[in-house]
């Protein structure tokens, strides 16, 4: 936020009161983050369809916008804006209308603590990483509300699966980040990125073997956390129509869609900041930090798409088994192992 408030002071002079500066800076950052979320949906839907096409030996969208259908998402967006907003007669109307925004706000709030570049972070919280995990835990409640309010058995099944999956996979997700917090000694996102400066060898992913394992576990858990294949149990189209958003149309459906792609980018941004050195390049001094950060995050998004279109879907019991009996013990091992590693290598204070 410092860079934004600095810019605002430059434009409007020193006459602004600190409170006005705080509010206008905050609103500007919220607007930028909403735009980032919208851009995620636009860019990644196109990318997703191209990746899917590539893996299935076909082209994907080719017609709209000349080069490889780049304007396809814009056409899709215009179409979805023109759709009728249908609310089922038997639905719980208030909850039905509220739930897309609960999910969207949970995602938007998490963006407040992502450090895109030095000084470009909406809120430099001391507890940044912890805050991100906390606000993204609001999403299961939104999914349950959507599924229950639709008054549709597929939606309810999808919501129950989705919420159970997200509540379960939050645990390995947060535990996998704990070794990094131990190594940095801080939950502040800027401090975590700053500690990885000076070349690829200082990134936490190669800090010790346990942190490499923690990164792999984080990556798997993050795919499950954003409900994407092979863990897309909440919206298995072959058995549940479309899961918890079966009954949604038009803009309300677009909000679910927006939140899904924004969360996909969000977990990749967290992985970039926490394990892959954030805005620090592979070698040499910091240059174009925002771009470096974006490239790393988009590579992770690309990997998630490859996984989604390559692997078959898990069964519900296999999903829960993977989480509680494989990933949670392994993340606990990572925490213990990197603690011992730090003690032996003398890093511990």
């Amino acid at each position, binding site marked *: 936020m410092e860079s934004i408030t600095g810019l605002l002071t430059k434009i409007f002079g020193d006459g602004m009161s600190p409170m006005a500066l705080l509010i206008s800076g905050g609103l500007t950052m919220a607007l930028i983050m909403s735009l980032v979320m919208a851009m995620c949906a636009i860019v990644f839907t196109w990318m997703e369809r191209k990746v899917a096409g590539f893996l299935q030996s076909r082209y994907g969208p080719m017609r709209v916008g000349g080069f490889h259908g780049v304007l396809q998402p814009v056409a899709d967006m215009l179409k979805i804006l023109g759709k009728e907003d249908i609310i089922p007669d038997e639905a719980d109307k208030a909850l039905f209308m509220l739930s897309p925004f609960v999910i969207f706000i949970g995602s938007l709030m998490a963006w407040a603590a992502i450090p895109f570049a030095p000084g470009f972070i909406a809120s430099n919280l001391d507890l940044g990483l912890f805050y991100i995990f*906390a606000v993204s835990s*609001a999403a299961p409640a939104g999914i349950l509300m959507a599924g229950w309010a639709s008054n549709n058995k597929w939606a309810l099944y999808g919501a129950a699966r989705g919420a159970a999956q997200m509540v379960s996979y939050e645990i390995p997700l947060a535990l996998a980040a704990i070794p990094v917090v131990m190594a940095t000694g801080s939950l502040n996102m800027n401090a975590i990125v700053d500690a990885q400066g000076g070349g690829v060898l200082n990134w936490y992913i190669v800090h010790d073997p346990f942190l490499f394992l923690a990164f792999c576990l984080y990556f798997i858990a993050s795919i499950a956390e954003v409900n994407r294949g092979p863990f897309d149990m909440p919206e298995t189209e072959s058995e549940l129509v479309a899961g918890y958003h079966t009954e949604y149309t038009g803009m309300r459906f677009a909000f679910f869609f927006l939140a899904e792609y924004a969360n996909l980018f969000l977990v990749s941004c967290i992985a970039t900041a926490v394990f892959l050195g954030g805005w620090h390049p592979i070698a040499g001094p910091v240059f174009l930090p925002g771009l470096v950060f974006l490239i790393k995050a988009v590579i992770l998004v690309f990997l998630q798409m490859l996984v989604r279109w390559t692997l078959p879907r898990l069964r519900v019991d296999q999903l829960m088994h993977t989480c509680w009996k494989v990933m949670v013990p392994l993340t606990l091992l990572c925490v213990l192992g990197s603690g011992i590693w730090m003690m032996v290598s003398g890093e511990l204070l």
Partner: protein
Amino acid sequence: MESILFYLFAVLMLGSAVMTVTSRSAVAAAVWLVFCFVNAAGVFALLSAPFLAILQILIYAGAIMVLFLFVIMMLQGPVLPDERERRPWSRIAVLVLPPASAAVILIAWLARGGVTAFSGAQPAVRGTAEAVAELLLNRYLLAFELISVVLLVAIVGAMALGRRKEELPWK
């Protein structure tokens, strides 16, 4: 600024708490309770206890309320009928109990010195992660670990009681 935010959070918290107990639908009550917890987290954050505020959202608004919603939805939470006719005493209770509890709180507040007791008081401990960790993992380590063991025993006990006798079909 801080007092404006405090009154905003406090009014929203109390309002949603009232909605929680007056909602006839169990799901609506649970959703109002989530909103109440979020506002409580806001009050904690204003009381310079950010760690507690985030825990409030993570544990209560995130995990516990999701479990509540699960149970309510799976058991088809009932929409309560209007029972005002069947229980005439409830109307008198509604008229008497809130003023009585307000009077008790007012007396307690005045006995502690009214407005003067709280003005300008600084919090003794800042509720940062470091401060909480210092207390939990140094000063009260034994109690903290004992509580974890008690909770673990409770979890294992619940699993043992809830387990089905026959083997699961997919094993």
